[in-house]
């Protein structure tokens, strides 16, 4: 009986084991940004998160996007390399293209639930500051931790979305500074404005450079009135975007996916 059970268990695990053996590691570095030790540690972390949530969490670095949109390139890369759990290919990828400093985040399956538009903007805030400082290892670790947190929240039925997005530590510091500054500046400006008005009340001797009071009623006559157009100028400025384009889109295979693109 024990032998039968062992054989059944072996057979059940065989396809997964065979798949795992064929599939590339969850961190793919075509440029060599990270050291071997960093790559190994990052891969270990991505594997642990992916297996725990059954949600493939992938990081990749490529030289360029070949003129494609970063999130589209990322999701195609994800699919072409055989990532994704189950028939919905549950999982997400953060891909960097170092030549143009592009990044693309994209996901399939459960990612559409776990990563709302507002949530994706929050996820960006977690890894983007590290990317901007070329601290790639920390950026990928922050991405991995973020995915772990996002998926866990979504599984509890509370995905990060408008209304429950926490502030990043940097934003908390900024909020404290702004609130502190406003608490000082607001009363200071108010006090100075009021005191200036009060101070001006003490001064009433001023030259009158006009003679409006002595204008003869009805004496003003316009004999010529010309308004000549000279030239016009149109100034065009690109509308502000938070970082990159984001939201739902379709991959090259036609699957529904979600993601964002941007520069770091």
């Amino acid at each position: 009986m024990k032998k039968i059970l062992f054989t059944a268990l072996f057979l059940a695990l065989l396809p997964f084991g065979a798949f795992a053996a064929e599939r590339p590691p969850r961190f793919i570095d075509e440029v060599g940004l990270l050291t071997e030790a960093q790559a190994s540690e990052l891969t270990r972390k991505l594997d642990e998160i992916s297996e725990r949530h059954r949600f493939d969490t992938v990081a990749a670095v490529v030289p360029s996007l070949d003129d494609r949109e970063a999130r589209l390139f990322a999701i195609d890369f994800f699919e072409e390399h055989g990532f994704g759990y189950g028939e919905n290919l549950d999982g997400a990828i953060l891909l960097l293209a170092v030549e143009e400093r592009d990044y693309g985040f994209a996901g399939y399956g459960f990612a559409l639930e776990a990563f709302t538009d507002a949530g994706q903007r929050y996820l960006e805030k977690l890894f983007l500051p590290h990317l901007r400082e070329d601290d790639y290892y920390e950026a990928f670790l922050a991405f991995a931790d973020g995915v772990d947190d996002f998926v866990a929240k979504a599984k509890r039925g509370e995905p990060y979305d408008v209304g429950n997005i926490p502030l990043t530590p940097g934003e908390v510091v900024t909020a404290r500074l702004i609130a502190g500054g406003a608490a000082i500046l607001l009363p200071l400006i108010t006090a100075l404005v009021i005191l200036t008005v009060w101070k001006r009340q003490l001064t009433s001797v001023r030259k009158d450079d006009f003679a409006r009071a002595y204008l003869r009623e009805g004496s003003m006559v316009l004999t010529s009135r010309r308004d000549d157009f000279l030239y016009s100028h149109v100034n065009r400025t690109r509308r502000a975007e938070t970082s990159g384009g984001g939201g739902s889109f379709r991959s090259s295979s036609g699957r529904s996916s979600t993601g964002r693109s941007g520069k770091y």
Partner: protein
Amino acid sequence: MALLEYKCPNCGGALGFDTSVQELACPYCKSVVNTETLRGLDDALEQNQEPESVDWGYTGGCWKEGEQDKMAVYSCKSCGGEIVGDETLGATSCPFCGNAVVMTSKFSGTLRPDLVLPFKLDKKAAVAALHKHYLGKRLLPKVFKDQNHLEEIKGVYVPFWLFDADAEARTEYSAAKVRVWSDSRYNYRKVSTYRVRREGGIGFDAIPVDGSKSIDDALMESVEPFRLGEAVPFQTAYLAGFFANKYDVDAEQSMARATERVANSAVAAFRETVTGYQTVTPIGANVRVTKGGVRYALLPVWLLSTRYEGENYLFAMNGQTGKLVGDMPLDKGLYRAWLLKMFGIPAAVLSILAQVIVSLLT
């Protein structure tokens, strides 16, 4: 020097101009004398004038050269007291007997004013206006308000030149219309620039320019406007009981200031006809006075002076409209105290509140 005093026909007391009844009144027997009837009296008195200077036979020390240039000495007809004033002094009261005296020679011949605007408000009104002026001034030293030691209050007929002017103005402005719109990718801002020209005529009546060097021009412009439609032909009777000066800045010297005010007002008036633009910047103006006239007038001003911490503070009140002006001292201690109250305490409370709110939100 010719002096003119108005004696009460009833009791012989010195008459003064009463602002409440707008006539000469006797402060002793309360008789009111019609100013019109005194026109003839002016002439009669002037015909009986004594020589301008009196030789009192004093052979004491001599004035140094130039020392007397701007000084004039008068003798009071009532008590014989000697009144020393500057050469522009036209009316005053005798420091010995208090009689109102008018130096008619300062207002005769070509020096005779065309108009006088009689005082409408008296000394009490001036003091009341000063007290009202103090009200609501939170940074005024309390001692300044409370002590209220007015050193001098005097009603002065200030010499003014009144300029009538018709002017032609050519003004030019750079003006811009701004339109803003957006599409899905861009924000657009279109600025259309125009050159705007306005030409025309404009007229002013009786722009007053202070004709006295001893009174600050800014102070006099601050008590404006005067309603000059109420001015009457000059009579010395109106000066009784008040101080008066003859001009020592002539019409020609005053003309520049009048022209400047005409030009500024013309440019401002034509600017108001430039409408429909978001920005309008004057780039040129040419204002030419085509027709002008000038009259000499005495206008009523109450001057009130006080001292505080060694500084003189002078207030002036329009004797016709009651508009009172005058710069006052700042209490630096009060300023700092209010700054602490309005900034320090709220800032401390708000700082704590702000940090608590941020903590609750994170």
